[in-house]
């Protein structure tokens, strides 16, 4: 597709050509082709073509059982597809073991949290740091080799723990954290590795609204630091407020793609969520009553007038466009 054509037809600056399921991106970080995964008679994932735009926040949504987590597992090497290839940053990652995927800069979290229970919160965090000299068997015996690096990592970990409101829990066993705190710890731990692409599987599930608000701020900050974010989320408000791009899966397929404001009106998406016979659109699901995100944010601000962590989005709750750069 030529540039002039895209300028005419696309209507979206992230996209090369026409907007639609499987459309090509101007600058993709992940490109997947013909990825399928079969569980017995069920095709959990059947994605012909999918591109994730670099440096943007992309939401992956879809009804329960749509194949979102399975897609995550496939892309990150935690599961093997029946067919398919995919590239990350131009490097083919098909068949690459999970730990190498993470080292390449594509780090994921889990829908069912995996905190390391009998390690302290700080130890959990430190495990996330990459390139540690002290993780080599022989070098580990000699503390001077890794002491300095350990101190630097600890400082980074403390910084992240403070941002995620876990600093008071630093020395506690991770097993003693609440479900929501584990979600936060897992996300913070993934960030220790400074990933290029972070893939969050329902990061907000179980996190209280006030903290959700500041987490959204963190995610936006990640973007402004140049990290690409791909996240799975069921809360439509969250999706519309934070993402630059939305990919919708249903029954294993990518059924729609687009910027959040228009994708919710896509008939294919409404079909996926509500079934084929309906006379409302997804907007109705959202527009009933007060917007809970904004509501929570307002309450949080009342409770903590000192919080000024995510300037920008609260004053400007419309979805950000691609050109919008975080200050």
């Amino acid at each position, binding site marked *: 597709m030529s540039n002039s054509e895209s300028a005419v037809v696309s209507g979206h600056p992230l996209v090369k050509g026409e907007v639609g399921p499987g459309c090509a991106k101007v600058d993709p970080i992940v490109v997947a082709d013909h990825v399928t995964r079969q569980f017995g008679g069920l095709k959990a994932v059947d994605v012909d073509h999918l591109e994730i735009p670099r440096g943007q926040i992309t939401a992956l949504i879809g009804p329960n059982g749509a194949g979102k987590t399975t897609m995550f597992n496939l892309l990150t090497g935690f599961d093997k597809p029946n067919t398919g290839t995919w590239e990350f940053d131009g490097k083919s990652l098909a068949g690459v073991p999970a730990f190498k995927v*993470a080292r390449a800069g594509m780090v994921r979290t889990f829908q069912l949290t*995996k905190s390391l229970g009998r*390690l302290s919160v700080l130890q959990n965090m430190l495990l996330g740091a*990459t390139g540690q000299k002290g993780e080599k068997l022989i070098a580990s015996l000699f*503390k001077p080799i890794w002491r300095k690096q350990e101190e630097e990592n600890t400082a980074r970990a403390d910084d992240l723990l403070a941002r995620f409101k876990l600093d008071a829990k630093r020395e506690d066993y991770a097993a003693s954290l609440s479900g929501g705190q584990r979600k936060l710890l897992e996300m913070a731990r993934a960030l220790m590795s400074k990933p290029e692409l972070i893939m969050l599987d329902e990061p907000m599930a179980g996190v209280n609204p006030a903290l959700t608000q500041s987490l959204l701020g963190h995610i936006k900050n990640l973007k402004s630091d140049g990290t690409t974010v791909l996240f799975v989320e069921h809360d439509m408000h969250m999706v519309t407020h934070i993402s630059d791009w939305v990919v919708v899966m249903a029954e294993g397929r990518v059924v729609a793609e687009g910027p959040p404001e228009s994708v919710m009106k896509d008939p294919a998406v409404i079909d996926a969520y509500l079934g084929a016979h309906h006379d409302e659109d997804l907007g109705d699901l959202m527009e009933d009553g007060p917007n809970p995100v904004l509501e929570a944010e307002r309450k949080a601000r009342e409770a903590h007038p000192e919080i000024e962590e995510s300037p920008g989005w609260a004053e400007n709750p419309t979805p950000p466009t691609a050109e919008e750069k975080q200050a």
Partner: protein
Amino acid sequence: MDWGNIFGNAVGEIISPTTAAYALAAIGLGIHFGYTGLLNFGQAAFLLIGAYAFAIPTLAGAPLIVAILCAIACSVIFAFILGIPTLRLRADYLAIVTIAAAEVVRYIVTTTGLTDFTGAANGLSGFKGTFAAINPIPEGRYGFGPFSYNEYDWWVRIVGWSLVVLASLLVWLLMRSPWGRVVKGIREDEDAVRSLGKNVYSYKMQALILGGGLGSIAGIVFILPRAVQPANYTTGLTFFIWTIMLLGGAATIFGPIVGSMIFWVVLSLTQGVLYGAIESGALSFISTTQAGQIRFILVGVALMLLVIFRPQGIFGNKKELSFSV
């Protein structure tokens, strides 16, 4: 009953080479299970391999250092054989493979076809020469009371316990380091560790080799005061090592040492008391053979009481166990 003798024997067990050997084996098992979460139910096989791979080259005329390196090399190879097919699978597969492999190696050394090498069921003896030759202690009897031994017995004790100290130091250094953090992470959830870019398979293999290597060194220490007997390497041995490790605390530095001391002192005491009672006629309804078996019934009961009332062991952290992870 000769109480002095009974207590003397029991106290002597505290520093006996057998206690040191079991402590070493339990330290190795601690690396496997306590720190990395590997279910090794074949630690006896590592002791067996250490014993035979030390004794066979020595009897063939190899120098001491060669025999020791041979024992370590064989345990490394054995760890690879166990680990390559199983460490990618779920934890329970390693348990099944180790328990079976331990029996397989025991049957192999017992077969009459290998009598020329392994001595079959009779085992091996006469391999102490190279170790005794480097003994710096002059001939004679040293010590006091229950701790009175000749120069060879002291030499075995000194070397055995030095190895225990070195192994404990090694584990302490490893487990305070980022390497130790990775293996402890693997114990908790290996997928989480994988998602953070660590080569879990490689770490599990390193842990298996390290713990197995300590097992093979334990095997050498174990045979220095005695002969190699294939009957010593049954699954019973593995479970005694497990008992010792759990008694002291699975992921602790001093647990295996103190666990081994308590285990052997208690075995010796019960044996002394039961045998004494039988000889003096106080116990008439059992024979000394039965008394020997009763001791191990007591070990089983003690292990059950331990896991019920103090599952974290003597040195373990109770807090760690209050979580259902």
